[in-house]
């Protein structure tokens, strides 16, 4: 009950503060540009009789995933930056000094904040991801059968980074939290690219580096799982390797174990945040 009270306050705060409004306006701009770009790209691709259905599928996948890549990353950054300051700043400013002495457990405060932000970030990713998918559906007629699961995985990527940021925020200042969370996120993205090159070049070292990075911060593994579900099927195992050439398509989506690892990672980060805040002096 208290958790829900805090969550609803947190959610309303993100709505009433200008930050989310800015994000929404920029996202609208992004979706409009994405729609216009896709329109002209598909006009050329579908207008060219020399391109096979496979190539068209590949191209459709690339363009759709380019849009969703944008959605996933804006969602992730939104999660990092709304959460980075939350606990640290509210301790510093004394906002929490009136809340913690209320008849509640401290973990309810952290869980409430997490829920409020999680709701906001999930709604953001779901709505913008759906919008990007519908733009592609309108232009090409392609809509993934796994749309819901794919978008859920995209949201999970943002929630993972949200949990890490909140954990850091319970023990570090806002700026430090933002910087560390952002670096982790960037490392995750780069490691994942290295891994994809590894598969393409059949270089085990690069693949291993990618896997280790995914274990340190599995945020991009979630993106790859989502992309693997959302990209159009090709139905040709040889041409399938062409996916490795594009910047967005995914050649070897991570296994379901990686998904489980990510969920466990998220849960542990959140649990850590609850425990750290439970013991800390304010």
């Amino acid at each position, binding site marked *: *009950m*208290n958790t829900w*009270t805090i969550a609803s*306050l947190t959610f309303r*705060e993100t709505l*009433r*503060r200008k930050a989310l409004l800015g994000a929404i306006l920029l996202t609208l701009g992004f979706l409009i540009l994405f729609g216009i770009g896709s329109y002209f790209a598909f006009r050329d691709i579908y207008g060219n009789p020399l391109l096979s259905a496979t190539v068209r599928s590949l191209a459709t996948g690339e363009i759709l995933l380019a849009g969703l890549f944008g959605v996933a990353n804006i969602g992730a950054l939104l999660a990092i930056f709304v959460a980075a300051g939350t606990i640290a700043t509210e301790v510093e*400013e*004394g*906002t929490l*000094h*009136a*809340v*913690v*002495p*209320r*008849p*509640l*457990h401290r973990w309810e405060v952290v869980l409430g904040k997490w829920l409020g932000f999680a709701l906001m970030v999930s709604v953001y990713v779901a709505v913008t991801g759906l919008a990007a998918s519908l733009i592609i559906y309108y232009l090409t007629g392609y809509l993934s059968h796994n749309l819901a699961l794919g978008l859920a995985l995209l949201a999970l990527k943002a929630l993972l980074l949200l949990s890490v940021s909140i954990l850091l925020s319970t023990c570090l200042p806002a700026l430090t939290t933002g910087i560390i969370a952002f670096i982790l996120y960037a490392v995750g993205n780069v490691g994942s690219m290295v891994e994809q090159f590894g598969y393409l070049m059949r270089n085990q070292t690069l693949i291993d580096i990618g896997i280790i990075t995914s274990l340190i911060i599995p945020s991009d593994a979630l993106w790859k799982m989502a992309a693997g579900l959302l990209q159009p099927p090709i139905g040709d195992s040889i041409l399938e390797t062409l996916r490795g050439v594009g910047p967005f398509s995914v050649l070897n989506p991570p296994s379901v174990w990686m998904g489980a690892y990510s969920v466990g990672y998220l849960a542990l980060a959140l649990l850590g945040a609850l425990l750290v805040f439970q*013991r800390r*002096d*304010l």
Partner: protein
Amino acid sequence: MAAIETHHLRKTYGPKVAVADLTLSVGEGEVFGFLGPNGAGKSTVVKMLVGLVRPTAGEGRLLGRPLGDVHAKRRLGFLPEQFRFHEWLRADELLDFHGRLCGLAPAARRRRIAETLDLVGLSARASDSLRTFSKGMLQRIGIAQALIGDPDLVILDEPTSALDPIGRRDVRDLIRHVRSLGKTVFLNSHLLSEIEMVCDRVAIIDRGRVVRQGALADLLAERELDLSIGGLTPALLDALAARWRVVRQNGHLVTLALSDDEDAPAVAETVLAGGGRLYAMTPTRRSLEDLFVQVVAREADAVLGGAATPRDDLPTTPEPAAEESR
């Protein structure tokens, strides 16, 4: 049952001792003043009482339950010293949020919001954003926030420091009103005149220990008598010292401590009988400030080996290692 009770409460941050050893008792229904110089550990004590800071050692009870207990917190109202409320909220929304956290049902919440806003004189600003509030209004909405759950114990941490004289008077009236409802008020303030005007009992703390505690009336009961005596001999001084405590003596000026105003004529008689000429005799009432300065200065003397050093020059180094540390 005491509203607040602490036994040997101690808080250290690494080698730094914030609160050395605090034993305190606040009875139900009283307005209790908590005094001390800057850096005495007052804020840390308050934070330990309301569960923001964990004691290193010792124990405390709030309304009969251990510190941090959720059931005790249900009956607690707290105004933090340095607070910033969610400024994007409206006044009534802030109170609604805190009312929810107190577990008030919607109908009770609406009633309490109207009551507390009225009590602090902010009814007309109920639906204004806190961003538009002045410092004094924020302080008042803070007090309304502390009272929203109809608490039995109200802990106010420096409630008047941001206020102008009118605002201070309003807060004093509020505190008296809260006491009239039978509630306990714990007032942390360094404004001695405030404490003197509203408190029933006080504790003065210094370096994390209680150095004086008691009913304000008892602490201030001792009167002083300033005398200007011509022909003051050691024998006469001894005669005075035999019956009254000599607070200070400088040349022909003598200050005695009296426990009763009725002693003044006897003092005059003693002076005259001893051959002294009495030029002036002025009774003075000891203010809380006199007591505070005296008690805190004595503490400083004890630590610094008798040097009469102003408080501000006191080193802020931690207590000597005589403290056992955990």
